[in-house]
């Protein structure tokens, strides 16, 4: 027996939204849910709070149902595409063992957070029938003492001062999400398992994001749901990126692999503008680049997967990547609407009602790029399937195929079909 269901709520009030999302998700099931995945946009922070939201969920959800989830930029399900509201996914099966775990202070000490999370598990066995769902706290724009909340610091001296503060920023659980390091650690412990995961976010302001673990709400947490099951599933990954023509660029990195000292032996920020063709004296062009740097990531290939390095900050003369760059020779990529529609179209073509459930994790830039045109993706999925499906728009995507190479990705689409 395998049943799955996706529900949602568009209520503004946190408590009512919690009740409705739980009710609409589980009412279609014939049995009690074996697990519940819960996602919402950030709006409930100002409309009752996430504690109330979760209270609403547990007003309805059967006691002891394992639940994890978090905040996302938006979601798509059989009802449409939304950047406000809440959605839930429930699965019930008699052939599924579920364990959940939580670790804290992911940005301060990702390794310790993973260990803490694993300490919640009774069973630490690893095999290919084990599937892991991962929710990690997303990046938060640092609030530098005396400088303020900034991701772009133009002054050289203030940039240097902010770089000195980076270790403190991590200790304060701000800055990079470090989800790449977390994924590496999880895969080291469970090399045979398969995994799909996401980083949480708000409405692209990168100030707050939340994780849900049973009836509690956290920031800076890692939540894992470990499933041991005998049903067939399929993982798939595609990209909205295309490589820009040209040679790879030489990056001189600091030991943290995020801070870039030089590009092509020139000052990193200056050369970055040179490469992407930005005139530093053109204020309008600069403004556009700051808000659109996600569209021009550098990156490299690992096993045919594009590992993008996103420019998340400009700190004086240095560039700061959101994730670690594993190589020092990186190419320039570009996210295009055309490639997004092409890759999602190919995925949609592989979907059918032979699958009980389709669950997808897409980079939030897909929805920011397409805006209302995101319905083109919805229409192509709906054309193929009537069964429930859920697509989440997130800050970063994790996927692991059990082949020894973990992939922490941006600008990608990852699907799990069961």
């Amino acid at each position, binding site marked *: 027996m395998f049943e799955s269901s996706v529900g949602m709520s568009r209520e*503004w009030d946190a408590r009512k939204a919690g009740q409705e999302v739980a009710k609409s998700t589980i009412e279609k099931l014939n049995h009690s849910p074996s697990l519940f995945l819960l996602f919402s946009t950030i709006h409930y922070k100002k409309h009752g709070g996430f504690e109330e939201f979760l209270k609403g969920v547990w007003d309805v959800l059967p006691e002891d149902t394992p639940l994890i989830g978090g905040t996302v930029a938006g979601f798509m399900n059989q009802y449409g595409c*939304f950047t*406000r509201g809440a959605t839930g996914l429930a699965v019930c099966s008699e052939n599924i063992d579920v364990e959940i775990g939580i670790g804290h202070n992911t940005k301060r000490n990702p390794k310790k957070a993973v260990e803490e999370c694993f300490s919640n598990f009774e069973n630490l066995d690893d095999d290919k029938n084990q599937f892991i769902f991962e929710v990690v706290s997303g990046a938060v724009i640092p609030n530098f003492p005396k400088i303020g909340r900034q991701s772009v610091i133009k002054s050289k001296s203030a940039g240097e001062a902010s770089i000195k503060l980076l270790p403190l920023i991590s200790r304060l659980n701000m800055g990079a999400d470090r989800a790449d390091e977390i994924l590496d650690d999880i895969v080291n412990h469970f090399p045979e398992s398969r995994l799909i995961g996401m980083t949480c976010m708000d*409405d692209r302001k990168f100030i707050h994001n939340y994780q849900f673990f049973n009836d509690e709400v956290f920031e800076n947490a890692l939540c894992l749901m470990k499933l041991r099951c005998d049903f067939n599933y399929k993982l798939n990954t595609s990209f909205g990126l295309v490589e820009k023509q040209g040679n790879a660029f030489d990056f001189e990195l600091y030991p943290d692999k995020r801070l870039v000292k030089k590009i092509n032996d020139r000052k990193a920020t200056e050369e970055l503008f040179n490469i992407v063709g930005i005139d530093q004296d053109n204020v309008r062009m600069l403004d556009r680049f700051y*808000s659109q740097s996600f569209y021009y990531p550098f990156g490299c290939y690992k096993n045919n997967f594009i590992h993008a390095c996103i420019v998340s900050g400009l700190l004086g003369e240095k560039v700061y990547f959101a994730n670690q760059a594993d190589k020092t020779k990186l190419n320039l990529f570009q996210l295009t609407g055309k490639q997004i529609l092409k890759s999602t179209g190919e995925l949609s073509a592989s979907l059918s009602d032979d699958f009980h459930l389709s669950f997808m994790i897409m980079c939030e830039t897909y929805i920011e790029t397409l*805006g*209302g045109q995101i319905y083109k993706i919805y229409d192509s999925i709906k054309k193929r399937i009537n069964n429930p499906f859920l697509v989440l728009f997130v800050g970063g995507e994790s996927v692991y195929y059990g082949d020894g190479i973990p992939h922490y990705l941006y600008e990608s689409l990852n699907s799990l079909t069961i």
Partner: protein
Amino acid sequence: MLYIVGDGIRMDDPIAKVLDDLLRLEDILACMVARQNMISVMPSDGTDSFKPEIHQTWDIIHRAMDDVFTVIREYSQAGLTEMEFRLQDYEALFYVFPDTENALVAIVPALANKGLLEVEMENARREIQKIMNEG
């Protein structure tokens, strides 16, 4: 120039309710269904429900909107579906109702994350279109 604000609109107008919902989003500063020289439907509380920061520039934005509607009237039959303009620190987004001269209009901060807002604009347009079709 003649503006008929709230003409024939009841407080329980279902389209006004859709606008009320849209206006609750932090970055939607003002919204309405309009056509050239006429605002057809406002949120339930009219301009009072617009975010305070928009009141100062509302008149100039309002006038600029009318010029955009000249273009919409000319090209909506040819398939024009969306338009936008930036004025000072604001952007006006126009979502045209297919084959009509009417559009859902929203004023947002120029630096807002428009993609996310546009998804909810599209949802509102679909909802209003449904109400119009049923009416």
